[in-house]
């Protein structure tokens, strides 16, 4: 039996169905990431699990018992909010101590536990400050400390790194798992950043249009995305998606891509004659300035990204394609438009149905 079970959840606001039919099982001790573009309902979902909103239909159960009718204060949940939600009129110490105060812990034990968490999150030195005197990073850590100190069995983290500087965000991405491992809680983490989702999650649940379109490990989501939408959401630059129609030719299955002809491997027979979307990631498109047997293209622009070079290619009939390669090669100092040839690594090809975008 999973630790957190969400079944058939529905929620509407003013005739707009934000959550259509959500079902999810989170195992005990798992770090599950809910990923989705903004306004997709992630926060509404978390609020329902926390007890702030009631679902219109469906059930939420924690450790075997349904909690839909249970008030938030009885659910043994720790939550860290996107906008921190610290108590402005209390010091960081009192903020963190709040979950322990409601349990009427003896003062000595309470102080010890608060300091323990504060030390672990490196905010012990500012623990007597009011929230307005803390930096963004410190506020975020205080919010995190407050959610952890009660050692809740379920931890809900609502995009806690959203409002934090890029550098601190990367640091926290490393620290968070280290910190959470100490507590062995089950974690549900919400984010809009796909890198964060892949880095932190044991599994990622992709929430689009009020349903989970795929719940799988980061590897599975990146290498076998369930539909075009998911494929585009994971990866920077986004995956190239081109409409193709493979046909059986003399030399095997062929298709027209970006003005050139590409031969598919043998197991592409099921695609013959079918209109579909061909997906290939930029790292699987190799570009050469010398003529090769690849597709002739114009290299329009090179934008470096994280030690890779991202190249915008344009096929003879106008299709745009992304390719990328590691920095430190002959392309490093290239500027402006050039003639080039692109080779596609079909071992990493994806095919999707034209009408619903589902994976083939």
């Amino acid at each position, binding site marked *: 039996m999973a630790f957190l079970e969400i079944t058939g959840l529905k929620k509407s606001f003013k005739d707009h169905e934000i959550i259509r039919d959500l079902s999810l099982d989170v195992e005990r001790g798992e770090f599950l990431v809910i990923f989705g*573009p903004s306004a997709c309902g992630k926060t509404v979902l978390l609020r329902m699990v926390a007890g702030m909103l009631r679902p219109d239909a469906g059930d939420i159960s924690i450790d075997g018992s349904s909690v839909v009718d249970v008030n938030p204060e009885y659910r043994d949940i720790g939550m860290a909010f996107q906008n921190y939600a610290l108590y402005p009129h209390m010091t960081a110490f009192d903020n963190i101590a709040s979950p322990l105060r409601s349990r009427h812990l003896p003062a000595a034990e309470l102080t010890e536990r608060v300091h323990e968490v504060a030390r672990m999150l490196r905010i012990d030195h500012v623990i007597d400050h009011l929230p307005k005197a803390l930096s963004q990073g410190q506020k975020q850590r205080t919010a995190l400390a407050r959610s952890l100190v009660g050692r809740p069995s379920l931890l809900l983290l609502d995009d806690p790194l959203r409002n934090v*500087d*890029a*550098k601190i965000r*990367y640091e926290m*991405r*490393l620290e968070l*798992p*280290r910190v959470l491992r100490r507590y062995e809680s089950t974690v549900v983490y919400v984010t809009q950043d*796909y*890198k964060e989702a*892949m*880095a*932190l999650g044991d599994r990622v649940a992709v929430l689009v249009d009020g349903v989970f379109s795929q719940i799988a490990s*980061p*590897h599975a989501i*990146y*290498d076998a995305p369930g539909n075009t939408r998911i494929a*585009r*959401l*994971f*990866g*920077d*630059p*986004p995956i190239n998606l081109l409409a193709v129609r493979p046909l059986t030719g003399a030399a095997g299955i062929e298709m027209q891509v970006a003005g050139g002809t590409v031969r598919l491997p043998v197991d592409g027979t099921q695609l013959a004659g079918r209109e579909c979307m061909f997906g290939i*990631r930029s*790292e699987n498109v190799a570009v050469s300035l010398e003529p090769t047997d690849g597709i002739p293209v114009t290299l*329009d*622009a*090179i*934008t*470096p*990204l*994280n*030690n*890779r070079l*991202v*190249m*915008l290619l344009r096929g003879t009939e106008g299709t*745009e394609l*992304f390719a*990328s390669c590691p*920095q430190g090669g002959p392309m*490093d100092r290239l*500027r*402006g*438009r050039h003639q080039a040839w692109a080779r596609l690594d079909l071992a990493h090809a994806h095919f999707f149905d034209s009408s619903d975008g589902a994976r083939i």
Partner: protein
Amino acid sequence: MTTLYLDKISKVYAGAAERAVDTVTMHIEDGEIVALLGSSGCGKTTTLRMVAGFETVTDGEIRVGPRLVNTLTPSQRNVAMAFETYALYPPLRVRENIAFGLLRDRVASTEIEKRVKHIAGMLEITDLLERYPPSISGGEQQRVSLARALIRNAAVYLLDEPMSQLEPQLRALLRARIKDYLIAHKMTTVCVTHDQTEAIALADRIAVMEKGLLQQFGTPIDLQERPANLFVASFIGEPPMNLFSAMVQNQTIAVLNERQEVAFHAPLPASERTRQLAEGHRIMVGVRPHKVHVAPGGSAEAATLVGEVTSNHWLGDSCHVGVMLRGCLLIAVANRDLQAPVGSQVPVVIPGEAVHVFDVETGVAIQHGLESAVALAV
């Protein structure tokens, strides 16, 4: 289509103790794309606004081409600007907003029509042309503001945080298209941004600013391979540069871990700067995650260190591995196929040429690249 010279320009606001911009000098070539990069309050926006003419210049000269523009009003300077707050005209349609500058310059209407269509297509706002600014989203308004600036025939183009609100999916595409457009039309452009990935993607050269001072002005590769000081080194790059405390011991670098023990050493090449370092002098040693090799193999003579994997973030096209080596946490970027589960032992090579040495007190870079790789301290 023009050069832009900033000669020792400074800005002091009335009643302020510090300079918002402190003797900044930049010579921007004709058709060059330059990014002003820094965190908020560093002076980059003030510098841009001085070039535009919205702020007076306390000291120094600004020349657009051969003309000294210090005393000219913005409209006399022939600059096009895209504002951080978009500043669109609410009663005009998007189409009219974009065309506004061209109408003022009295360009022929067929030409305007053509250009608006082209730029709207490039920035993916064709569907919005007949809409009014208040009815479109922030990201869309930003693109309209960009279109309005880029469509004009100006001497210099000034873009203030031009893509901060863009949806992540569009970012890669529009960055590439805009770069292509700027290069194809030889547009001298100055971009202000706080996002170093944006600066590196777009710019020919980047001016890193902090507290009003220009820290370094160079190509993205210069900034990555030869950062002038600690600020630039830690600002540029994702993941950020690995930095460790160290000190000079017998002409070698002794790298210290969190417990202040010596974890590694590497011979310090003799140069003018390094000879001046006293025994025990405190330094910082940095190495970019992308240059750290994690894997069996590598050249036979490279000294190999073995550490424990504390984190492994698989990101699809690469993986970011955190390795604990003698109390020092090192982040490395490795190939996506690397098998390095958390808790396992992996060999790590830190090549000498990837190591940068900085002085702790001043932050200035002392040395880029050592002659041999970093080895474990005995």
